[in-house]
């Protein structure tokens, strides 16, 4: 027997100021901040889908286009994320290679997979392993910004390695796409409402 939800008790949490409002007295707006009241994040599923799909689309150029351009003594090289990882691994910096790989390939892919799983199970009203799914969501929120590591690496190197003729590193368009992917996945994670996992099929949005 599941405990009663806030909805059955006529309560609603304001999404802006987190005030638990009684729908009996304030059916539409939060009495504290005046924000519109929703039982759940409005259109959470479709928003998450949209943002996630956008991130997925941008993930392709982020991986295919070079993120950095290294110029050292007339020798010009452009690296994409994957070729950078391979190069690091080959030059012996396998620890950094692993970190970069996890941050830029592992994390985004995990996010896509987990979000898709959550969205589909929520849409289907699946009631199995709700607790684990919630934990997954919390983990997703936690690791989300780790992907920004790549962007920081590119930004730092570009700023630091500027030796003119002898060597210079410049960011390339790929890193912009990658940054967009990270931002979009984070937005997608945020727009998802984990409470939907616990809702019975007839209560979920849409």
């Amino acid at each position: 027997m599941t405990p009663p939800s806030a909805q059955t008790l006529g309560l609603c949490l304001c999404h802006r100021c987190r005030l638990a409002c009684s729908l009996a007295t304030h059916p539409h707006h939060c009495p504290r901040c005046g924000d519109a009241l929703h039982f759940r994040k409005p259109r959470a599923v479709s928003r998450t889908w949209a943002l996630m799909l956008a991130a997925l689309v941008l993930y392709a150029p982020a991986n295919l286009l070079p993120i950095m351009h290294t110029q050292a003594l007339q020798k010009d090289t452009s690296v994409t994320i994957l070729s950078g990882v391979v190069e690091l691994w080959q030059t012996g910096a396998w620890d950094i290679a692993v970190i970069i790989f996890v941050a830029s390939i592992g994390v985004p892919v995990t996010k896509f997979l987990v979000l898709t799983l959550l969205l589909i199970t929520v849409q289907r009203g699946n009631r199995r392993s709700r607790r684990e799914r919630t934990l997954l969501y919390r983990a997703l929120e936690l690791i989300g910004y780790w992907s920004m590591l790549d962007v920081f690496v590119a930004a730092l190197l570009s700023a630091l390695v500027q030796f003119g003729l002898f060597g210079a590193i410049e960011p390339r368009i790929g890193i912009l796409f990658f940054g967009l992917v990270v931002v979009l996945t984070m937005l997608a994670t945020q727009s998802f409402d984990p409470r939907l996992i616990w809702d019975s099929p007839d209560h979920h949005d849409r």
Partner: protein
Amino acid sequence: MTASDKDSQPAEADVRSRPLGLSLVWLVPIVATIVGLSMLFKAWQETGPTIRISFQTAGSLTAEKSPIKYRNVVIGEVADVKLSSDHGQVIVTAKLNREAVDFTRQDSRYWVVRPRIGTEGISGLDTLLSGGFIAADPGTSAHRTESFTGLESPPPVTYGEPGKRFVVKAEDLGSLDIGSPIYYRKVRVGQLVSYELDHSGDSVNMDVFVSAPNDRFVTADTRFWNASGIRIGVSADGVEFDAESLVSVVTGGIAFATPPDGQAEPAETDTSFRLYPTQEAALTPDKGPAQIIRMHFGHSLRGLREGAQVDFKGKKIGEVTEISLDYDPVTETFPVIVDAKVYPQLIGDAYDKLLRTQTIDVGDNQQSLTQALFHQFVRQGLHAEARQNNLLTGQLYVALAFVPGAGTDVVADKNAGAVVEIPTQFTSFDKIQDQLTDIVDRLSQIPFDRIADNLNGSLEELKQTLTSINRDTLPSTRNTLQGIDILVNEMSATLQAATATFAYDSPERQRIGHTLNELERMSRSVRDLSDYLRRHPEALIRGRKEHNTGTLRP
């Protein structure tokens, strides 16, 4: 449902539904897709052609790193470097940029830039640091292709350089090479771009490039000559030394000039020229069209070689091209056939004059003017003879001369084509030879045997005569000699007696001395007498007066 119930129930939310029921958030993936698609489209648009270039060696090319450059602008990148299936070549796969489509023309050229030292200095040093790259040169051909054969060395002339290309045909390449300079009045105006053997294999076709604006000096009448090396000539003026430039001495070169009476109109591009071996050969007037003549010689032509000159009154007008043997079944002899090329224009002004004054019967069988002229000469008695050029080496040359009254009728042999048959005559030298042979023949006819027999008989007789002389005459001679001997002895005795008579202290000699003294005195007194008589002729009558003696002595 009660009113309080109604109140406790949340009011109907004023849901503002959006048109089409779509959330604005969907714009995000749509924009992302549009951006992605536009990137894809851009990438597709930028993806130029992929080409394959084959090289002998990969040099310092690296896959996905080495660029392809044109005028130092990157127009593509090497995508892959691998061996061809037969391991004979290196196949470089390269991706060109979209805008580099012009570099896929059939005559586009690619070569690997690496450090090089040539006649023009050192080039490509920067590739030492940056690694090699492929340089490209767009072509002009309308045909496109995807596979190219890379050049092993950079082309000396790139497309779009103003100037003209000409073809120069030479017997051999000599010391020329790609990049050899072209000189005009000893100013470097171009270079040799490429060379290849002619399809026939007879000559080398050289592609030369003369850059603008100097290409206008090449006209249809321009002569090219090989200016390689040093020319040293010894003449009456002393020793001459001539060379185009130090570079041409080392690497060879081509020079050109236009004869003063040549055309001034610049030649078209790709005009073909002949490469003369020397400047003199190039600038001597054109020989004009050649006429092939054929001569049959009955005697041996040892000493006549191909290339021997053909003279007309001492002026060289052609050369022997072929000497072969023929068999005449009628006389069962092997006449020597000598073919020669003669250049009637080498006769000079006389030829023009001939053409103007002579009325030449061209005849019906499409023979050329010179052919007709030669036929006419033959009718007028033109003969060929092989003459000794050098008595020591025995070299022969062919001399053409008119033999008065020896004109022969021309047999127009249609099989002979343009060849004119010239009758031959015995050489003066051959005549001497014949006369010598004649003399020898006559000498051999002298009956030396009989003469010897006769002589032998005469000698026998002589011997007999001598024997008889010995036997008969000699004894009498001996007697006579003995008589003579006695006579001589007597004479000797007489002489001895005479000598004794006149000896220094002989009495005869003393007497002679006295006699002579007496004679002296006598003559003196005769003189005195004659003197006295001259002064005193009267003394003859009156006799000598004594007192007058004093007057005699003054």
